[in-house]
């Protein structure tokens, strides 16, 4: 039995060898359409505010298609589109034009959407990003072609009410809120050059961080600032297959699961000699794709026509310069800095940049960083810190500047081998569980003073270590005897005794080494 995998196309446990061979003949072909909601103060064609509000409180006559109203184009939307064009290395057309795309929904009051189908603001771009995954040994760099960028209106929102079941009840109806109607979107159309769901989500993740950084969109997925459609088909022995379109996904997890689900679904159909229907599908809560519309609706005729109320939009040279300058002033995004300047790996830099608290912590640490501390060391100790804090049920990552300073001091000290690994773990626990929450930073004792006061420096003198080991062994002859006979439990017990007695001040490897010498040479 074939089962839908949530992990991925290649990792289905129940698949037989034959199925694997069968699968190897198919290559998933995925193209994306990303709708980015711009963070301008007003809508694309009306000066209606875009702030959140209760239903139908953000509406001007144009937004509900009141006859006689005309569109007035928002200049900030053009800047944002030009910035996006530069981000995706697109060619900005000398002029672009708007089209009407007709369809009839209550949330599209004019009966058409103003978009840019034939002469978009920018086209022919390319965008590179790192692809990483737990199933991949090494991250790889992927470049995708961008077909076009278009400015367009968003629709309103619909709440569907089913018919009331009681007698004399009403039929189904829709409740419409026009607050979002007419808000500005940029649609990014990629070529179908993604081969896995992982590639698709890394693209969206990277893009999201960049558009937030460059102030193009607020990029909040749960608010629908980024909505993704995916076209999925399976190419068999280089022969293209029928594609289906998954509409309106607004979380990274959904994009991942739904694309993988769709690949698996199409494979199952093709593998049993069926035909994939060209259709529009939606992703449900679990990421399964379900058929959305009637089959013949796929050939919907949108009756594109040029929008007669908007003349050609000529892109002025100074607009391009302004967009360029704004982007240069914004500099690199945090994840790019983490990756390219500090040396974090692609996965960690994205992971950190996506979590504001974690990012704040890392940025605090980096400011205090001595350049000899590497990104790997920071990552290693962050992982230790996370485990420690979770065990003591504290909130990771710590928020205070004080802690960040102690954290970096500890890293430096362990690096210089002035503190042992185990001692640092203890100190991390101490500081992370005590330094948070109170603002009495000035009164707290820094790592250096604390260590100095309690004399916790690593014992460096080999003769001192030998003396301490010898002492402890003489006091535990029975354990020594057992350890010498190869009993590892006794060896460990002995080691722990010494460790405790010396307050973890001997490096654990060094300690084991010395203990072995003692046992082998029968020095006790």
């Amino acid at each position, binding site marked *: 039995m074939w089962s839908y995998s949530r992990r991925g196309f290649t990792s289905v446990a129940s698949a037989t060898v034959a199925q694997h061979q069968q699968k190897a003949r198919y290559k998933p072909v995925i193209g994306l359409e990303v709708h980015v909601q711009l963070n*301008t*103060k*007003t809508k694309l064609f009306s*000066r*209606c*505010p875009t702030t959140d509000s*209760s*239903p*139908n*409180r*953000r*509406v*001007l*006559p144009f937004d*509900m298609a*009141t006859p006689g109203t005309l569109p*007035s*184009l*928002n*200049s*900030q*939307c*053009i800047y944002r589109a030009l910035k996006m064009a530069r981000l995706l290395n697109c060619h900005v057309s000398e002029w672009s034009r708007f089209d009407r795309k007709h369809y*009839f*929904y*209550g*949330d599209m009051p004019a009966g058409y959407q103003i978009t840019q189908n034939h002469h978009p603001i920018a086209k022919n771009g390319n965008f590179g990003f790192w692809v990483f995954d737990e199933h991949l040994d090494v991250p790889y760099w992927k470049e995708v072609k961008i077909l076009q960028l278009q400015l367009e209106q968003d629709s309103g929102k*619909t*709440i*569907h009410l089913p018919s009331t079941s009681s007698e004399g009840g009403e*039929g*189904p*109806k*829709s*409740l*419409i*809120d*026009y607050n979002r109607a007419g808000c500005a979107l940029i649609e990014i159309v990629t070529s179908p050059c993604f081969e896995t769901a992982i590639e698709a989500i890394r693209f969206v993740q990277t893009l999201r961080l960049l558009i937030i950084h460059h102030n193009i969109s607020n990029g909040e997925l749960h608010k629908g600032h980024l909505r993704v459609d995916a076209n999925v088909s399976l190419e068999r022995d280089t022969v293209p297959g029928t594609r289906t379109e998954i509409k309106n996904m607004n979380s990274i997890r959904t994009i991942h699961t739904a694309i993988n689900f769709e690949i698996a679904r199409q494979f199952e159909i093709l593998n049993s000699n069926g035909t994939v229907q060209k259709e529009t599908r939606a992703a449900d809560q679990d990421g399964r794709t379900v058929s959305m*519309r*009637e089959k*013949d*609706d796929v050939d919907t*005729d949108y*009756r594109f*026509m*040029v929008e*007669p*109320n*908007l*003349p*050609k*939009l*000529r892109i002025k040279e100074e607009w391009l310069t302004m967009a360029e300058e704004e982007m240069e002033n914004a500099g690199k995004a945090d994840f790019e800095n983490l990756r390219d300047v500090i040396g974090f790996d692609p996965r960690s830099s994205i992971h950190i940049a996506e979590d504001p608290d974690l990012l704040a912590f890392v940025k605090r640490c980096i400011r205090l960083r001595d350049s000899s501390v590497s990104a790997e060391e920071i990552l290693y100790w962050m992982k230790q810190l996370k485990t420690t804090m979770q065990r003591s049920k504290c909130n990771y990552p710590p928020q205070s500047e004080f802690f960040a300073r102690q954290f970096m001091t500890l890293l430096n000290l362990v690096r210089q081998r002035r503190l042992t690994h185990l001692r640092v773990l203890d100190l991390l626990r101490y500081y992370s569980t005590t330094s948070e929450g109170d603002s009495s930073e000035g009164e707290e004792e820094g790592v250096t003073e604390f260590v100095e006061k309690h004399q916790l420096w690593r014992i460096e003198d080999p003769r001192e270590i030998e003396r301490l080991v010898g002492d402890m062994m003489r006091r535990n002859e029975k354990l020594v005897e057992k350890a010498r006979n190869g009993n590892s439990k006794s060896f460990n017990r002995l080691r722990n005794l010494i460790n405790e007695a010396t307050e973890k001040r001997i490096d654990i490897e060094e300690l084991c080494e010395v203990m072995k010498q003692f046992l082998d040479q029968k020095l006790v």
Partner: protein
Amino acid sequence: MNRLSRIIWTSTIRANHNGRSQRRTALEGDKVLVPDEPYNSKIDNSLLSKMPPIDSKLIANLERLSLVRFDSEQAVANLRNAIRVAKRLELVDTEGLEPMYTVWEDQECPTFEDIEEEPLPIEEVFRNAPVRFDDFFVTPPGNVPLESNERFDLNVINEWDTIGKPVAPQAKSTRLVEGKEK
């Protein structure tokens, strides 16, 4: 005589019959631009490309696109005539000409600063709404597939077309329930 011009002609006669004094202009003394006599097209209809056959599939498609239901064979026949008149445009020589989409083609698209205006007060928003539910507009459900079974007698449409009866012939009895959800 061409059918359409005959319709216009008869209606003009009727208008004339009611008295020339009834033809008013916005301002007194303005020139009346609508001719009293119908203009007979000199376009040779035989030069026009053939009319597409109007079958039930085309009718259904047009209904879906326009969101307008034809209510009788006569309505479909009227549409056919309208298409025939529009077809005359095919004879205009547009060789090598870029189609225009607006008379403002040389104008640049004006742009506006991103400065908020006060949105409409909620009562204004709903002033034209026939149905309101709390602060929402209410519409019938969208995306209801249209049924497209044979509703019209295609022969009757053609008959009407050739005879040119001013009254619609009897419509086929099979009517469907509008807006029924599938």
